[in-house]
């Protein structure tokens, strides 16, 4: 399979041997041996490049061959422990999107709280808490909590999470996220670090677009203090294409210096993207043995 020249950014979440109660109901974790297979496969499909370097080449329009890079959302500890050493062997440092509240171990990702509650049969209490907010028993919480997202929904989930966990468990749960020092060391090793908002709310959707500024700016401030430089890439959490707010383009224009990163499942072509300051990524289905199938589909769409 030959890929047309473009920058292909492969989007992952976590690379780890472990998939515990906080992550397993959400998905997005792949084991290191499978990830290594993906990297080997990617090497045969184009030029593996560090995300920083590929971003520079892309910005200067120098995309003469297929370039592939790896991007990890949420800054999970497995990225530091397992993905980084693998990518180092291939000299292809990746990019990582940081949620400041998770990395500073201040707040647990609200979706992970749901996953955990699912594992201990706690969702029935969440459902009861959500009924006054318009949730019906027939709704699947996984999708409905996103479709009907609000800060009240987050609070209702958190109330049950606090009820069913001890302080020790809550503190221990943060081990799934990289610590601030780990994130800094990735930066020092040539990784591209991006802003992924403070708490991973769906700020690109109508339900949370009013939180756009607060969430990105809070994370921006935290990351600037950590890295001594502001991150230039802002990555949208969730990025459900069909749910993007019509106000998104207006809000984005207030930040002309930032590059906005979507999923989009398409590669990046200089001049081919909808806006010059945006990037797309290709979501890799972690539970497939390889990436060729995904990239083949993307390449076919690109040719069309």
């Amino acid at each position: 399979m030959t890929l047309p020249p473009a920058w292909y950014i492969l989007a992952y979440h976590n690379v780890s041997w472990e998939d515990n109660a906080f992550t397993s109901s959400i998905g997005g974790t792949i084991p290191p041996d499978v990830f290594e297979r993906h990297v080997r496969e990617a090497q045969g499909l184009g030029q593996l490049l560090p995300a920083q370097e590929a971003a520079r080449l892309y910005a200067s329009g120098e995309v003469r061959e297929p370039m592939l890079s790896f991007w990890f959302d949420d800054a999970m500890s497995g990225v530091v422990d397992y993905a980084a050493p693998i990518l180092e062997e291939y000299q292809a440092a990746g990019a990582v999107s940081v949620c400041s509240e998770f990395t500073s171990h201040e707040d647990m990702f609200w979706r992970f709280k749901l996953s955990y509650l699912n594992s201990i049969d706690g969702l029935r209490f969440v459902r009861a808490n959500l009924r006054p907010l318009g949730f019906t028993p027939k709704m699947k919480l996984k999708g409905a909590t996103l479709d009907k997202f609000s800060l009240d929904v987050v609070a209702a989930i958190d109330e049950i999470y606090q009820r069913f966990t001890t302080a020790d468990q809550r503190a221990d749960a943060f081990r799934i996220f990289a610590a601030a020092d780990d994130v800094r060391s990735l930066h020092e090793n040539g990784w591209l670090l991006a802003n992924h908002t403070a708490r991973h709310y769906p700020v690109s959707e109508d339900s949370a677009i009013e939180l756009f500024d607060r969430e990105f700016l809070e994370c921006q401030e935290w990351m600037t203090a950590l890295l001594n430089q502001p991150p230039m890439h802002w990555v949208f959490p969730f990025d459900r294409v069909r749910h993007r707010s019509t106000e998104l383009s207006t809000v984005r224009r207030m930040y002309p210096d930032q590059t906005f990163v979507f999923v989009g499942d398409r590669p990046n072509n200089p001049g081919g993207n909808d806006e010059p300051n945006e990037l797309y990524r290709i979501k890799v289905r972690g539970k497939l043995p390889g990436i060729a199938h995904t990239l083949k589909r993307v390449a076919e769409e690109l040719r069309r």
Partner: protein
Amino acid sequence: MIPNELDGCSLEIPPVGDGAIVCITGRDPRHVRFALRLQQQFGERVKGWYQVVRPTNVDSELNNLSMRAQVRRIVSQLRHPREFAGKVKRSAQSRLTRRRKGKPAVEAAFFEAEIRRLETAAVVEPKSVEDPNDRATLDEIRGIEPFCLLTFGGAIYRKPLLELVRGLSLNQHDGWCPEYRGANTADWALYHRDLRRFGTTVHLTTSGMDAGPIMRRSQPCLVPWDSPYTCFLRNVVVGTELMCEVVKDMIDGRSMKAYPQPESAGRTFLYKQLTPTVSDSIQRDFTSGWLGRELQRLKGHW
């Protein structure tokens, strides 16, 4: 993760000092990875690595002999009937587990690359022992004055050995305690289609089988095309990573809690209980694609 259903109690850890670590393992690649991973993580702190060599059985002793030599060997062994009976028993068990054929190759391939990488950071050579509780081994370990004794596979560890440790003795168990204690627990969790309790436990070592207070417990990341054996191997790797976490916490002087297992809960599975019927049943599930469907179900239906 720490267990969510058990109450924890604080552990008093003495000053770490040089924090000498001794590990006792079996001899399979997963055990080798365990010891090498600890050496990679803790370097010179690892002062001793003992590999428990299982006593030979009749089959393996006779395999390489001519017919006449085999007869002579058997006749000579009949002079020590009790010892001979033990060897026959082990041979019978070994025949029962012949169904594991092909597994050593799978395991070697699974760990090969990583072991090669980890070997570059090795600081001690493994030493073979038949029984880690024997006097000579005890004397040697006493000389090391271990702060931690870390065990994975191999043997039953008796009180005199455990009493040599200044800090904590920890064992990696490839089952979800307290529900699955004993032997072949990964298989038993699969047999019961209990993927939520397909996991691994690091616990304080006591003379009871996998019965010590729990320090950490978690689950592996499985993929739909896994076989029962690769599920097991993934589980093992998670256990070793948890072990590294616990030891690191201990050496860093963090406050630690242990979660005693309720005596009345769970079950201890014996080696002999894993009959071919059980193994075949697990295999049938995997052949029919159960694992992929179950992973999808756990992820999607809520």
